[in-house]
């Protein structure tokens, strides 16, 4: 405190409307976070059934994950698919955003809307459509078919953040770089890309999470010996409803949180110079 002697402000009395609003916001947050508060304790339960509140303490459900190789395989597949899809979507999304923001052409808005359709399309329809499309190509139930589907799925997330970031960047910056002797590539490399980085990181985070979490569409495209983690979890839960699922969820929760914190740090740093 710079002024330790300053009189304390009168006790804050919020108007009723504001207190109601605060209560509402807290209620919504609790509701959103509730699954987390239930799932994490369950993962450490000693009970064989998924019932709340948990009884006892045990790590055996985590041990159970390790004993079942299908979870490891599914995790590896999901991670590979998510990383592949994100890299492709990030590249394609950045290039598409550059074209869409820097050039005016007829049908531009329609193109943007078209690229965004996977966001609003019912997943079940998209899944069926992708299955129908990949089947004649011989890509159904293959890694590449699944990866391609995830590119389609994650692309709009990357494109959306890339478009938002790019349209915030003053066009004159690229032009200034041109007049200073930087050709298009150097301008992109030294000016545009660094300025887009926070947005691209945010888009990539979304893409990773969306891909890793994807259930409905993958369901149409996976096959025996090729299961994504959410599907493997679902299969397991169909037969044995024990806290193993909660244990996996807890691990995923930790991984996601760490990823988001790391990226928020990076993005936060990026925001400093704007």
């Amino acid at each position: 405190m710079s002024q330790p002697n300053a009189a304390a402000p009168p006790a804050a009395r919020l108007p009723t409307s504001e207190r109601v609003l605060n209560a509402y916001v807290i209620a919504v947050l609790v509701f959103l976070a509730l699954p987390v508060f239930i799932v994490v304790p369950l993962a450490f339960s000693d009970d064989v059934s998924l019932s709340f509140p948990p009884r006892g303490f045990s790590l055996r459900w985590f041990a159970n994950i390790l004993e079942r190789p299908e979870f490891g395989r599914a995790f590896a597949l999901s991670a590979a698919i998510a990383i592949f899809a994100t890299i492709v979507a990030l590249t394609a999304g950045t290039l598409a955003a550059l074209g869409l923001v820097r050039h005016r052409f007829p049908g531009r808005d329609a193109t943007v809307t078209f690229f965004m359709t996977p966001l609003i399309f019912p997943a079940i329809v998209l899944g069926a459509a992708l299955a129908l499309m990949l089947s004649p190509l011989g890509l159904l139930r293959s890694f590449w078919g699944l990866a391609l589907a995830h590119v389609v799925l994650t692309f709009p997330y990357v494109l959306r953040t890339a478009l938002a970031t790019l349209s915030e960047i003053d066009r004159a910056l690229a032009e200034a770089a041109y007049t200073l002797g930087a050709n298009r590539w150097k301008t992109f490399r030294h000016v545009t890309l660094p300025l887009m980085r926070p947005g691209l990181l945010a888009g990539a985070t979304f893409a990773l999470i969306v891909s890793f979490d994807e259930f409905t569409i993958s369901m149409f495209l996976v096959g025996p010996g090729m299961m994504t983690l959410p599907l493997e979890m679902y299969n397991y839960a169909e037969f044995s409803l024990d806290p193993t699922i909660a244990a996996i969820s807890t691990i995923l929760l930790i991984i996601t949180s760490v990823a988001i914190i790391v990226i928020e740090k990076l993005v936060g740093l990026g925001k400093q110079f704007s």
Partner: protein
Amino acid sequence: MIKANPSDAVGVDLRDVQKWYGSVLAVRGVSLAIAPGEMVCLLGPSGCGKTTTLRMIAGLEKPDAGDIRIGDTLVNAVSPWKRNIGMVFQNYALFPHMTVHENVAFGLTMRNRPAGEIRAAVEDAMAQVRLAGYGDRRPSQLSGGQRQRVALARAIVTKPNVLLLDEPLAALDKKLREQMQVEIRQLQRAVGITTVFVTHDQEEALTLADRIVVMEEGQIVQIGSPADVYERPKSRFVSDFIGFTNAVGGKVVSVTGTTARIETASGHSLDIPGAEGVAAGDEVDLVVRPEKVAIDPPEGSGCVVVEGDLVHTVYSGAVTYFHVDIGRGAILIAMAPNAHGAASALPTSGARLRLGLTPDTVLVFPRRG
């Protein structure tokens, strides 16, 4: 000290240059030859095509017709990054993710110069714009005037052939703007670089330019030295723009040589020398600067005396403007410095005033429209 070898300085030549934006003809056939080392100001109202012309010289827009040469090179199809120009943008366009040093170094880095040379040149340029020691800051940590200087340093450090400035001082306050005008002029002289400066501020153009190019609706309407343009505007448009705010209607009675006798709407008769392009019977406008209208001129000073009633007084600090009805509703504005600072001693509305017009400060233009 960054200094172009004078023999390195190159001119810029625009010939019949046109630019369309969709169905808008933004620049309609501009021809302009800029000498090596010269400083030219493009002056004109908003939307007259100044920026577009500058951007075409920079290569940021392609002309739809006509030729642009920098030195002997036809640059119509040359990319901006190959033109060796320096440009200062209206909002400076400093790279926000780089330090001031990195910003200024950018052009040299892109030219793959050795690090030692870059450092020395950047420090030199920073000193020239009096920003030594600011290298580690981010542009966001600078004031408007400092950003402007960084932009200038960044543009000159590469020793460009041509320096292009698009209203670089528009965002600064009056005092800083005037200071920067002097600095830019000194820098331009010192470096000896061919410069095109865009402004819509006539005073700025008069202060800075070797030559002023006045534009109207995508065309050049007058080219001349500051004194030329200031004293001898060629059209009503230019005269208006350059501060001839008085316009009194009239009719040409007779023309003898280049002297026209004009009967004004206020009922006065004036012989105006140097009235070109008018013939007896023409409807004309007489224009004159308020500061050229004498108040209460001494007898026998050779000027035409008109009398009228003061209808309106505008006090504006250093000077006061007197709006005088010189007859039949024709208003003549006279300006006088507030020498004694005695605003209370100013004549009040309704007072009778004698005004003196010196014929050779009055210009005659055919009535527009």
